[in-house]
């Protein structure tokens, strides 16, 4: 069984070959090769060439490959998209500072153009808009539902707090409303929702606390900036023993009902409808993943 999940998405600076070539050994569910903030303005071309070659020639295994391009208003934007689409093995592009559906459409048009030019399977490259401005938060549902290519949206805490004119604190009270809004928009649009980074790589306790919070809000994963942050996050996202048992009871009961031609099923005295079954499958998949690690 192959279960696709994004509990962790590991940022890797785009101009660092040593880290890029090891991207799939750290155990993250996805990697985020970065062309934006971690790359100096005069090295954007070098990082772009390097990332494109890494994706093209390095045979990454069992990991989702995503690239954060420069924002739409940057002179690098179109070149970034062209070169990384041309690499041929990309799973998704993360669009920073997505402020409207129009921004997503701009990226979508470019991907369509270059998928065609490089003879790639149409629609294979997904879009992950990054919500990191106040207007982006307000329009997050419009953004999340603006393209069939979107299968996750994300929130960027550092830029968002800068845009709000406040400081980003460890407690994160200042972005609680934004986090909730972005989660709700993602759920309404039926896409994954990925939380911002936890900046203090030495504070594992703080990371765990924040991951518990964002999991309870409905986030499906979290961006990470250091491989050390991966395991604690996966542990928080791991289902409890009772949840796993319940999930397999639901799946078994559903399959049995299907064979017997029954439409309505109940487990532990509660009716099982499609959303509950979907949740059970997600938990079972997560349990399977934990077993592999």
């Amino acid at each position, binding site marked *: 069984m192959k279960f696709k999940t994004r509990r962790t998405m590991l940022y890797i600076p785009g101009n660092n*070959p040593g880290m890029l070539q090891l991207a799939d050994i750290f155990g993250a569910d996805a990697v985020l090769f970065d062309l934006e903030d971690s790359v100096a303005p005069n090295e954007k071309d*070098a990082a772009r*060439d*390097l990332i494109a070659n890494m994706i093209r*020639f390095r045979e990454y295994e069992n990991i989702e490959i995503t690239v954060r391009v420069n924002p739409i208003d940057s002179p690098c934007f179109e070149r970034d998209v062209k070169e990384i689409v041309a690499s041929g093995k990309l799973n998704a592009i993360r669009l920073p500072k997505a402020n409207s559906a129009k921004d997503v459409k701009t990226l979508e048009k470019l991907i369509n153009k270059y998928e065609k030019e490089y003879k790639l399977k149409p629609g294979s490259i997904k879009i992950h808009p990054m919500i990191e401005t106040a207007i982006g938060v307000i329009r997050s549902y419009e953004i999340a539902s603006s393209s069939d290519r979107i299968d996750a949206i994300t929130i960027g805490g550092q830029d968002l707090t800068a845009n709000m004119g406040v400081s980003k604190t460890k407690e994160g009270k200042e972005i609680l409303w934004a986090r909730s809004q972005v989660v709700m928009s993602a759920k309404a649009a039926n896409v994954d929702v990925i939380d911002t980074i936890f900046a203090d790589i030495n504070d594992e306790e703080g990371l765990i606390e924040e991951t518990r919070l964002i999991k309870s809000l409905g986030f499906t994963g979290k961006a990470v900036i250091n491989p050390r942050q991966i395991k604690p996050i996966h542990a928080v996202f791991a289902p409890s023993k009772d949840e796993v048992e319940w999930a397999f009871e639901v799946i078994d009961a559903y399959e049995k009902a299907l064979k017997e031609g029954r439409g309505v099923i109940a487990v532990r005295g509660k009716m099982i409808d499609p959303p509950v079954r979907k949740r059970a499958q997600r938990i079972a998949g997560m349990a399977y993943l934990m077993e592999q690690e």
Partner: protein
Amino acid sequence: MKISKKSSAGSLESSDLMVYLEPMDTIKVEAVSSVSTSQHQKEIEALVKKELKKAGISGAYVKVQDNGALNLTIKARLKTAISRGIE
């Protein structure tokens, strides 16, 4: 096409390399490495010549200082240095 101005790309970090390009009428490639054998340096020189040919470069002096880079990194750094050298 010839390299029209001095350019460089890369770094001296581990798993990376520095590529230096200078204008020249013909092709000359020199590779030095702190971590590899002279045989590997010859392989790097051959790789660089092959990539220059692919890029249509007929004139350039190329100096490569390798620090354990993969071939795909060598190709990427060379590509960047070429585009900077023909701008």
